[in-house]
């Protein structure tokens, strides 16, 4: 996949927050890519999977060459299965901490239990066993937390704490997907997206084509590096590619250069 050649996935970029954003299209292919990428790179991954079931991610992962079940069994992967545990939270005693505990609160609470779960999952274990490379937090996706009743400030605080711990303290990476509803009325979604953009080092934005659905070009990907204000040519700050999702990979090409139209 062409993304692997971009600096976004080199091993020198540690302690970074990469924001995946989709507008008028489905950006989950980026989540699958990063999940398989980091597992293959031997990183310890905590995956907050709120949108699909574990078996779905596993099936797609197998097409990309990783087995999530095996990774989970050997301790490399910790998964918060949102679809399953959202129901569990109501059948457990209240005293037991649960990552999705905020669902039980009558008023919008904070996401501290979720942060605590992530912290415990990724905390480097002292001792000889340094089996894994840097810790990675992957979230699919943050907009679901808004839909479940958490406020945008609570979600931003959760990401802030994860950044302080995973990125700054442990030099790990965070990759999170958020949706751009494009709806001017949805203020919470806007605050969340803008707040996350300001916290990110790299923004990958998957957009549907302005002209609508196309069989051969599924969308375009804009890459924005939020670098310091160094003198740089315009093309170093952002790039745009168009892409087509295939069964086991995604092919990228420059705008207007799809093989189907050449």
């Amino acid at each position, binding site marked *: 996949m062409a993304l692997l050649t971009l600096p976004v996935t080199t091993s020198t970029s540690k302690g970074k927050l990469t924001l995946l954003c989709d507008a008028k299209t489905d950006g989950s292919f980026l989540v699958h890519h990063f999940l398989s990428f980091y597992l293959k790179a031997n990183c310890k991954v905590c995956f907050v999977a709120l949108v699909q079931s574990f078996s779905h991610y596993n099936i797609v992962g197998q097409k990309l060459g990783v087995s999530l079940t095996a990774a989970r069994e050997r301790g490399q992967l910790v998964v918060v299965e949102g679809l399953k545990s959202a129901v569990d939270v109501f059948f457990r005693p209240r005293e037991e901490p649960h990552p999705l505990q905020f669902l039980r609160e009558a008023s919008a609470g*904070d996401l*501290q239990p979720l*942060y*605590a779960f992530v912290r415990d999952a990724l905390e480097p274990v002292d001792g000889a066993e340094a089996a894994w490379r840097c810790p990675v937090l992957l979230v699919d996706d943050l907009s679901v937390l808004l839909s479940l009743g958490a406020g945008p*400030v609570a979600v*931003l*605080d959760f990401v*802030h*704490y994860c950044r*302080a711990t995973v990125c*700054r303290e442990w030099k790990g990476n965070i990759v999170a997907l958020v949706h751009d509803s494009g709806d001017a009325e949805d203020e919470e979604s*806007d*605050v969340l997206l*803008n*707040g996350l*953009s*300001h916290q990110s080092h790299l*923004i990958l934005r998957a957009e549907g084509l302005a002209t609508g659905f196309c069989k051969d070009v599924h969308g375009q990907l804009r890459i*924005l590096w*939020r670098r*310091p*204000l*160094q*003198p*740089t*040519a*315009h*093309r*170093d*700050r952002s790039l745009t590619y168009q892409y087509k999702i295939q069964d086991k990979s995604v092919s990228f090409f420059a705008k207007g250069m799809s093989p189907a139209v050449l």
Partner: protein
Amino acid sequence: MLESLLALDGLVLLRDSVEWEGRSLLKALVKKSALLVYHDLFRDPLNWSKPGKAHPGGPLEALRDLDKRTGSGPATIALDSLSWLLLHLPCPTLCQTLHALSRQDSCPGDSPPGEQVRVLGLLHEELHGPGPLGALSSLAQTEVTLSGTMGQASAHILYRRPRQRPIHQTQWFSILPDFSLELQAEPPLESRPRSDPHTPSVDPTTHLTFNLHLSKKEREVKDSLTLPFQFSSEKQQALLRPGLGQATSHIFYEPDAYDDLDQEDPDDDLDV
């Protein structure tokens, strides 16, 4: 000038956006200031870790404590970021605290002139509505709005001085890797990159199977042609000059032997 921001007192707002981030400029300005005391509120601003190593009252109390420090000379307080504070605190509370910090209404005997405080606050424009933005803007003596074109960053500076007209200034700059500030001249007004000078311009009429060129004679004839519906002065004169040289049309008719030209009944169909 951008570098003299540190010489001004009061609240300086650094307004940035997702595309043009302002944190590097804030760091560059902080680097220039004399004494740096770092309050780490990044690690645990909301006291989530136990035991809480953070300031017990949270960031608001930490800010208010800064206000209470006495007699240590002029100081610069850099806030990264005001947006975080605005999202977590009510706007009036934040405004009051900032107002107290930047000592707007200090009575003459209150603080000696040497103890001026300046507050540099980083504000992310897209995160807030016009109300809070307007409130902070009215508190600020100086506003620096970051933007840019073609990879070159610019700061639009608005100075407000009491009893004076506000001053606008635009400064192009860049931040070097060691966070020193480099001022630059305005880039030329080219809105798109120059085309590659090595590709020669191609004449499209060279390889055609038909001839699109005109010879000199053909061009002369073409240029001298008057268009039929173009109202030139010659045409105007011709229309205004009646009759001279312009013959009215005549019909010349030679009657045949069979013709019986009866002027009263030329068609011979009257039953008289």
